């Protein structure tokens, strides 16, 4: 049995991701236990961790620090695969521009920036922020989590800020709105995505299924 834990630090909707994981497990005939928890004991006992996040980074970081999730993640990444999603990915960076500037966990080098206010699409229309909907993801790294997913397949995004990684970070996928941004990054035991695999239908479920069998190596 695989034991998954979705890290719950009191910020928003974690049920979608838990439901998607359960669905993927059932589909693959895998016995899966999915806990949604902020309890360090539960998180330490899990085989794999999901680090989701929605909402404002300041509130997320305050809860992450209060509950000691930052130290726990640092420790757990030495031992087991972690999938970070959306604001979870952003929280891994050093600093975010959101809420007037917020220090993040700093597991990955780089910052989180806002999309430009006055960007325009090819027809001259102002681009709406948040970037909301289905955009193609260009795979910039061969990685087990992309297995069975074609290059440039679309995933569901909803975000106003994006990760701008330092050169030390391995970018696994990019998207454009309209400038190119980091849609996925990879490190030992870590895969982080800006989009929502749990809401990205076939491709998203495939990525989650790939995560269930990933050994943590690129």
């Amino acid at each position, binding site marked *: 049995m695989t034991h998954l834990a979705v890290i719950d630090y009191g910020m*928003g*909707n974690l*049920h*979608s991701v838990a*439901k*998607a994981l359960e*669905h993927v497990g059932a589909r693959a005939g895998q016995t899966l236990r999915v806990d949604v928890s902020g309890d360090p004991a539960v998180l330490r006992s899990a085989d794999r961790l999901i680090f989701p996040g*929605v*909402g*404002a980074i300041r509130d997320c970081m305050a809860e992450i620090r209060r509950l000691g999730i930052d130290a726990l993640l640092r420790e757990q990444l030495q031992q087991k695969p972690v999938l970070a999603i959306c604001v979870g990915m952003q929280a891994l960076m050093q600093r975010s521009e959101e809420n007037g500037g917020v220090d993040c966990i700093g597991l990955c080098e780089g910052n989180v920036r806002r999309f430009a*206010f006055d960007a325009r*699409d*090819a027809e001259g*229309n*102002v681009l*709406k*922020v*948040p*970037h*909301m*909907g*289905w*955009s*193609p993801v260009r795979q910039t790294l061969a990685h087990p989590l992309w297995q069975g997913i074609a290059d*440039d397949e*679309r995933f*569901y995004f*909803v*975000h106003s800020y994006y990760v701008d990684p330092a050169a030390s970070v391995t970018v696994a996928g990019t998207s*454009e*709105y*309209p400038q190119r941004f980091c849609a996925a990054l990879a490190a030992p035991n870590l895969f982080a995505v800006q989009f*929502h695999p*749990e*809401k*990205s*239908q076939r491709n*998203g*479920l495939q990525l989650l299924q790939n995560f269930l069998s990933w050994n943590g190596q690129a």
Partner: protein
Amino acid sequence: MSLAKRIIPCLDCDNGRVVKGVKFVDIRDAGDPVEIAKRYCDQGADEITFLDITASSDDRSTTIQTVEAIASEVFIPLTVGGGIRKLQDIRNMLNAGADKVGINTSAVINPDFVREAAEHFGSQCIVVAIDAKCVSQPGETQRWEIFTHGGRKATGLDAIEWAQRMVNYGAGELLLTSMDRDGTKSGFDLELNRAISEAVSVPVIASGGVGNLQHLVDGIKIGKADAVLAASIFHFGEYTIPQAKTYLREHGIEVR
């Protein structure tokens, strides 16, 4: 390739069944919401919107069960609206598996509710639903006003100002319905949609009046909608989602 325009089928549900009325009368039964949502998802719908129009009761347990059932099988974004009045209502819907909630009348009664909701749950899950009706005379500059109670009750609020205010309060997206067009199959109110879409920074979903696929194209190209919502053209088999996507693609619109 870039961000796709979204096609969103809408399930108007009364006591756990999908229905669709013409201007809120003549309600026809269109079936089981879970089955329908799953079918649309399999066909390539980009999101699903579920509107609870059960008028008779404050009891949302049927809705919560339906949302749970849909969310266990449908892995695209799900918006739930209808009867969202308190933070607890939002929490209940998110816990049931909704990704966003639509707030309509409650925003008009208490605009601060939108601000509180966005602060608590994040703008990304707060959709403000705006029902607007044209109130200017022919020949005048067009003006639209916010109406509640299915288009029966005027509020005195100017639609464009209201839309901007709701975005300032933290709405992450607007669902704009023309009460003049809803159920008529004569197409979106394109002037209304364009005016609102150009006045706000967040995505706008056009709704109300779709009768054919050209209406969807017009909503995006002329009305500047980021997404288009339709109910009856899909429920009663006039068009499928793939047909709609093919038509949009043939007209130069990027779709998934």
